Structures are given as structure tokens and as C-alpha cells.
């Protein structure tokens, strides 16, 4: 960076130099780091996106946590426990990434448990059957991977690096989900029916995880210009469907969309319209489990307040002791 001493003390020209540097980083597809200058809008967008992503990981522990105590074999119980724990870990990395942008974890958590913040609406669907552990892994973690692999190259360094770690584990999760469904589909009549019924329920919500269609997605363009988002919602959704169709064949499940058909000309599978009215309902908080999910996390947080307070008091006392001695 160049500039005389007087220029640096002048705020607007400091911003100008920062802005030029920021533009240069984006143009060269390089990482923006916490100490770099960045536009307020970029910072705000990232805080919103990363904290929503963290909240999704945390809330996402519930629909699967629901089956830990009832998993039908000890091996599946161990895998599921490890998975739910991984999701807690993802939430923790992401909160740390967001903290580098100048927001603290208490504030973010407060936004989550008061219902002020959004999280992925997919977790507002319930998990009435064991097969849902398969569908969530295969479809929900699967969609998450399609969304998140490009985010490993997101321009903001701490976010991109968190995504690299997370994606590795998500692909584990997807394979485990696929395996659950495969065992069910190779099992008894009742098990096959359980798997198909579950896939029927999760398929469309999973496709909606990529967000509204491109012509109805106002913020996407800006995020793409900032090298946060690399592909449009519809592009990612298409990739996901292209990946699912052959996997569904191996499983022997039917995807609940009669319009799925190979399109030679496009080199992609065509698929039917999604019910976006339903998506907006769930997004607006009217999904089957919205209130339960937030209430449960808030309850855990409130029940644990005295524990956190004790830990703080203990740590403070030890610190004072150390200073005194």
C-alpha cells in the first residue's frame, strides 16, 4: 500500500486504499482476511450468512438427536451420536468464523433462541421414522455438500477454511445416510416401505434448500460479485438432481417427481416445479416444528444458565488468585 502520512490519517482516503485493495483481492480471486478493509455490506452479508449457517448446524442436531436413544442397532447408535456431535462441532467452527467479523457468540445465540435469526428451514420438518436418519443424511447432508463445496472457495478466508473442514465430515454423513437407506431397501417389506415413505417426504424440502428460483433471489447477484456465492440457486439445484437420480436407482427408491427425465439436449435431468408456497410457509415460521426447535434450544440454554454462571465465577476466582499470588 502506498500513501503519505497525511493521506493515511485521512479516513476517506484510507477507505479508498482499502477499497482498492479489496477490489484487487476479489479480482484475483484471493482471500479477504479479518484485518483487511471490507465494505459494510460485505461484512453484514457474511455475518448473516455464517451465523445462519451456524444456527442451522445447531438446530439440525435436534431432528436426528431425536433418534439417538432409539437407534435400532448399537453400530447405528454410535454413528448417529458421532454425526450429531459433528454438527455441534460445525456450529462451533462457524460461530468462531463469524466472530472474526466483529459479532460475539452471545449475541448470535441470543438471536437464535429468541427466534430473531433464521436457520435452514429444512430442520423444521419432523423425523417420525428411523428411515428419516437415512433421508437426512442422503438428501439433506447431500444438498448441504452441493451448496458448501463451492463455499470452500468463498472470498472470506475464515469462512472458506471452516467450510473445508466441514465438507469433509458432511460427505461422511451423506454416505452414512445412503447406507442406512440401502440397508432398509435390502431389508424386509416393512423396511422398504419405511424408506420410500421417508424419501417421499424429504425429497422436495431438500431441493428447496438451495433457495428460491434465480429470478426470485434478489441477494444472489451481489453475493456472486463478492465471490461468496459461486453458482446460482438453480444451477446448484440442477447439480443435486443430476447426482440424486443415479443414486436413487442404486437404492431402488423412487424419487417423488414424475417429471424427472433425462434431457439429452441440456445434458441434465429435467424435473418438475416445486411448491414454493409451502417453502415460504415454512420459512415464515409455519413449518411443522419451527416453534419446538427454537423452544428446545432456548430451554437448554435457560436450564444451563446457572452452570455457565458457575463456570465463569470459578474461572474469575482462579484468575484473581493467580494475580494475587
Amino acid at each position, binding site marked *: 500500500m502506498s500513501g503519505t502520512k497525511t493521506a493515511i490519517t485521512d479516513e476517506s482516503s484510507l477507505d479508498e486504499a482499502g477499497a482498492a485493495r479489496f477490489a484487487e483481492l476479489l479480482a484475483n480471486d484471493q482471500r479477504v482476511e479479518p484485518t483487511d478493509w471490507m465494505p459494510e455490506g460485505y461484512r453484514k452479508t457474511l455475518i448473516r450468512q455464517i451465523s445462519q449457517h451456524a444456527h442451522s448446524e445447531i438446530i439440525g442436531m435436534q431432528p436426528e438427536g431425536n433418534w439417538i436413544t432409539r437407534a435400532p442397532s448399537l453400530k*447405528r*447408535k454410535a454413528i448417529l451420536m*458421532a454425526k450429531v*456431535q*459433528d454438527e455441534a*462441532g460445525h456450529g462451533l467452527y462457524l460461530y468462531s468464523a463469524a466472530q472474526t467479523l466483529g459479532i460475539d457468540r452471545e449475541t448470535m445465540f441470543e438471536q437464535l433462541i429468541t427466534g430473531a435469526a433464521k436457520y435452514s428451514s429444512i430442520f423444521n420438518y419432523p423425523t417420525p421414522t428411523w428411515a428419516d436418519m437415512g433421508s437426512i443424511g442422503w438428501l439433506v447432508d447431500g444438498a448441504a455438500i452441493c451448496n458448501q463445496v463451492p463455499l470452500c472457495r468463498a472470498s472470506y478466508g475464515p469462512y472458506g477454511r471452516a467450510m473445508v473442514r466441514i465438507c469433509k465430515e458432511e460427505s461422511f454423513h451423506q454416505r452414512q445416510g445412503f447406507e442406512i437407506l440401502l*440397508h432398509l431397501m435390502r431389508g424386509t417389506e416393512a423396511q422398504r416401505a419405511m424408506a420410500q415413505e421417508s424419501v417421499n417426504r424429504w425429497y422436495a424440502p431438500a431441493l428447496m434448500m438451495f433457495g428460491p428460483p434465480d429470478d426470485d433471489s434478489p441477494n444472489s447477484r451481489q453475493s456472486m460479485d463478492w465471490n461468496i456465492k459461486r453458482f446460482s440457486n438453480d444451477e446448484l439445484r440442477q447439480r443435486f438432481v443430476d447426482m440424486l437420480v443415479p443414486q436413487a436407482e442404486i437404492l431402488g427408491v423412487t424419487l417423488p417427481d414424475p417429471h424427472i427425465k433425462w434431457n439429452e439436449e441440456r445434458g441434465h435431468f429435467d424435473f418438475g416445479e416445486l411448491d414454493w408456497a409451502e417453502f415460504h410457509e415454512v420459512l415464515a415460521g409455519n413449518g411443522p416444528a419451527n416453534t419446538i426447535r427454537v423452544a428446545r434450544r432456548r430451554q437448554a440454554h435457560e436450564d444451563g444458565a*446457572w452452570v455457565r454462571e458457575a463456570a465463569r465465577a*470459578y474461572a474469575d*476466582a482462579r484468575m484473581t488468585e493467580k494475580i494475587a499470588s
Partner: protein
Amino acid sequence: MSHTSNRTISDAVTAETIATSGSIAPEAVARYAIGLGDDALILAQRLGEWIAHAPELEEDVALGNIALDQLGHARSFLSYASSAWEKTEDDLAYFRDESEFRNRQLFEQPNGDFAQTIARQLVASLYFQALYNALCQSTDQTLAAIAAKAIKEVDYHVDHSVQWLMRLGLGTEFSRERMQHGLNSVWAFVAELFSNDPLTANLEGIAVDPQTLQEEFDRLVKKAIAEAGLTVPTVPAARGGGRAGIHTEFLGPLLAEMQVLARAHPGATW
């Protein structure tokens, strides 16, 4: 704390390696292993109830880790035990009734609040530490190998519970009260851990006589409780009998939940 994906599943001595090793447990050893496996399984099931409900996210991860370790130990013991009757770990976990479970009663006690869970963990982890240290010397190679792997994990569980005992005991007036209450609630079930275990009869050199573990346990637990500014409870011991299939009212509902799906589909694999 390091957080790695599916840690327990990729470690060396596992239920899978035991199941495929072809080693068959003599029946008396298998009966002993069932007791050890049930202790760990029932505790893992209880700890699993905390996941997504812990006081902070770090504790969701920590309690999940401990539950996963316990479940790993349970699977190893039960896999080995099941070899005696050409069964599987799941046959034992899912298709035995309450009176066939051999866990000590401490492990089936409800979680209560966080302090009560920590109190149970303190007792459990110090007991397991003493037990597995001794079991490493077993002349039964499989039991010794399971214990040798488990001990490293249990050392961490001891640290975790002792640290929380200190934080809660010396934190605030309220947390001190809760922690003392937690200790008081679980203490009736301590004596049973060290009482004569009928399953160890005729297994000299193979099984560990629990009576030999008490001295070490008492020394460590008293020291930890005193350092946390709390008192060792003096409550009458519960009647016990877990190793003979006698349980408190809490085991039935726990098993009903754990076994419900597996029993709805007998013969199915998952």
C-alpha cells in the same frame, strides 16, 4: 479438545474386530463381560439423552464424546460376550428383558440436572478407571485389550467430571448447593459398585474382584470432593442387586425406549 469425525468407530479394538476375530468367550467369562458391557451401555444411553440439551455447545460435544466412548466399550464387551452363544451384540442389547440386564443400579439412575449427571459421572469414571486399570492385567486377552483401550478414554472422563465438580462446587452458592444435592442423590448407589460380584466367582486372574477397587476409589473421590469444598454424603446404601438382574424403576422405561424399534422388526438388519 480435539474433535474428529467418528473417532470411536475407526479405533483399533472395536466390536467389529472382536466379532470377526473368531475368538469365543468361555461362558463364565461371557457372563462377566455382559455385566461390564451393560454398565457401559446403560450409562451411554443416559448420556445420549443430553445431546442437544446441554448447558452449552461445548458440553453437547463433551458429553457426546463420553457417551460415544462408553458405547464403544459396551459394544466391545457385548460383542465378546455374545460369541459364547453365537449371538451378536445387538441380540444382547435389544432382545433381553429388564431382569436379564446385569448393570449396576448407579448407571440406570436418571440424569437429573447437570450437577447430578456430573456426580454420577464422577463416581462412574473413577470406578471405571480403577476397574480397567486392574482388568488390563486379566489373563483373558480380549478383556485385557478392551480395558487397555478403554483406560485412555476413561482418564479423560475423570478429568472432565473432576473439573466440573470443582467449577460447580466452588462456582456460585447456587451451583454449590446443586452439586452437593447431586452427590447426595447418587451416593446410595456407590456401595453396590464395590460389593461382591457373583459373576466374578471362579474367574480368578480373569475377572476383577470389585472389593479390591474400593480403597483407591475412596481415596480419590474423597480428595476430589474435599477440594471442591463439598462433603462426602452419608446416606444409607441402596439394596443393590443389579448384577443379579434386580433394578430400580428407572431401567424399564430406558430399555423400552432403547429397544422399541428393534423389537418392532424382529430379524431385521439395519
